[in-house]
C-alpha cells in the first residue's frame, strides 16, 4: 500500500475518482446482468429499466472525466498518480461502451419478448457467463491493484472468442436451415456479438489497469509480461 499524499485534498480527489470508476463499473455490470436476465426471462419491465439506466452510466462517464481533469489541473499528478488518472479516464470509456452493449441486449430482449419464446435462447448463457466473469475480474483487478489478474484477461478472452464463434455458427446454421424464427436468431447473433465485445472491452480495462499498476503498455503486445 502506498503512502498517503501530504496534501489531504489530493488524497480525497484520487479516492473520489477511484470510487466513481468503481461505481460506474458496478452499474455497467448490473446493467449487463439485468439485460441478459430480461432476455432469458422475457421480462420487458426489466429490459426497460436497463435502457433507462444507461443514462446514469453516461453521466458517470462525464463525472470521471471531470474529476480526472480537476486532478490534472489542481495537483499536476506524476508517476503512479498520473497513470491512475489516465487509466481511470480510459477505463470509464470502456465501461460506458459495455453499458451500451447491455442496452443493446435489453432492446433485443424487448423485441424478442413480443414473439413466442425461443427455446434456443439459453444458448447465450455460456457466452454471458464467460464475458461477465472477465468483466468482474477486470473490475476486481482495478480495485485491488492486481496487475497479474488484469494481465491474464487477454488469454482468457481467447477462450471466450472460441465459444462465441461456436455459438454464433450454431445460430447462423439455424437460419441457413430455413428456420422460420430468422428474426429472433438474428437478434441472438447480435446478443452474443455484444457479449463477445464486452469480453474485449474488459480486456481493455485490464490493459489500462496493468499500465496503472506496472507502468507497462501491453496493448497490441503478443508477449504480455509485466
Amino acid at each position, binding site marked *: 500500500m*502506498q*503512502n*498517503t*499524499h*501530504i*496534501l489531504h485534498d*489530493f488524497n480525497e480527489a484520487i479516492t473520489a475518482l477511484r470510487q466513481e470508476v468503481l461505481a460506474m463499473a458496478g452499474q455497467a455490470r448490473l446493467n449487463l446482468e439485468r439485460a441478459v436476465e430480461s432476455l432469458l426471462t422475457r421480462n420487458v419491465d426489466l429490459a426497460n429499466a436497463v435502457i433507462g439506466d444507461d443514462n446514469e452510466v453516461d453521466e458517470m462517464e462525464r463525472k470521471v472525466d471531470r474529476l480526472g481533469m480537476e486532478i490534472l489541473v489542481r*495537483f*499536476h*499528478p*506524476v*508517476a*503512479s*498518480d*498520473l*497513470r491512475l488518472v489516465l487509466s481511470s479516464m480510459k477505463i470509464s470509456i470502456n465501461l460506458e461502451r459495455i453499458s451500451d452493449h447491455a442496452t443493446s441486449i435489453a432492446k433485443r430482449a424487448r423485441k424478442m419478448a413480443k414473439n413466442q419464446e425461443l427455446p434456443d435462447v439459453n444458448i447465450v448463457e455460456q457466452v454471458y457467463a464467460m464475458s461477465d466473469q472477465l468483466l468482474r475480474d477486470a473490475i476486481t483487478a482495478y480495485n485491488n491493484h492486481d496487475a497479474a489478474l488484469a494481465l491474464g484477461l487477454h488469454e482468457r478472452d481467447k477462450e471466450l472468442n472460441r465459444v462465441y464463434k461456436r455459438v454464433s455458427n450454431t445460430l447462423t446454421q439455424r437460419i441457413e436451415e430455413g428456420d422460420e424464427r430468422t428474426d429472433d436468431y438474428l437478434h441472438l447473433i447480435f446478443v452474443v456479438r455484444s457479449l463477445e465485445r464486452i469480453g474485449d472491452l474488459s480486456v481493455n480495462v485490464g490493459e489500462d489497469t496493468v499500465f496503472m499498476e506496472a*507502468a507497462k503498455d501491453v496493448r497490441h503486445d503478443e508477449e504480455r509480461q509485466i
Partner: protein
Amino acid sequence: MSNATLQAASVSGKRMVDERVTAETSSAMSTEQKATANEPVPEGAGGRPIQIECRDVEFSYGDSVALKEINLEIASNEVTAFIGPSGCGKSTLLRCFNRMNDLIPGARVSKGEIWIDGTEIHSDEVDSVELRRRAGMVFQKSNPFPRSIHENVSYGPRILGERNKSALDEKVERALRGAALWDEVKDRLHESAYGLSGGQQQRLCIARTIAVDPEIILMDEPCSALDPIASARVEELILQLKRDFTLVVVTHNMQQASRISDKTAFFYMGELVEFNPTSKVFTNPDNQRTEDYITGRFG
C-alpha cells in the same frame, strides 16, 4: 590563490575581479588542459560524450558529510535537473562542478573524483578560475553588477584580456542574443542593469555567463524568484542554450524539471537515489523514494 580571488573570478559572482586573472593565465591553462586530457572521454547512453563525471564523490562540510558515494555521468548538450528536498545536497554537488565550494572554509570533496572533459578538476593542473570560465553559474537571485547592461556582459571578456572595443561589442551582442535579451535592451545598452525587470536581470546574468564562452552552465534555482511569464522565458532560453552548452539546473519546481530537462537526478539526504531520463522519472520512477517525493507523499 586567496578565497577572495577565487570568488571574484567567478564571472557571475558579485565581487570585483582581481587583476591577477589574466588572459595569459586562461590561455596557458587551456593549452595545458588539452595536453593533460589524456583520458578518453566516454560516451553517454544517447551517444553524446560525457562531459561531467562523478566517481564515488563524498563531500564534507568539516566533519559533516553532505554527499555520499555520488556516481553520475552528465552528457554534453543535455539539460540535467537536480531535484530533492532542501538540504539533500543537490546545490552542493552543483557547486562542486566549478569548485565554488572551495570558498567555504572546511568544505571539501573528501573522497572520489570529479572529471570534466577528461580532466580531474581537483588536480594540480586545473586552475579554478579557468574552471569557472568553462563552467559558469547562474544563481537563484539575479545579481547584476551596479553598472550598465553593456558593462555587465563585457566584464568577463574584458578581464580575460579582450580590449578591442568592437570585439567586445560583438561579444556583448552575441551573448545578449544568446540569452534572448538583445531585442529588449539593444537601445539602452549603456543604461543601468538595475533598470531591468527581474526576469530580464536573470537573463542578463545568463548573458554574462555565456559571454566568456563556457561549455557548461550551472543554474541554481534560476526561476524561483521570477513570475510565470519570466520563468517561461528563462525555460525557453534553457532549451535553446542546450544546443551550445551542457546545462545542470537545480530546481524545486518539478513541473519545471519535467519541462526542461532530458535527465533528472533525485537526491535525498546526501545520496543520489535515482538518475534517469526525465520522462521515466516522472511517469515510472525506479525508486520508491523518488515516487514518494515527486508525488508529494510522506516518505
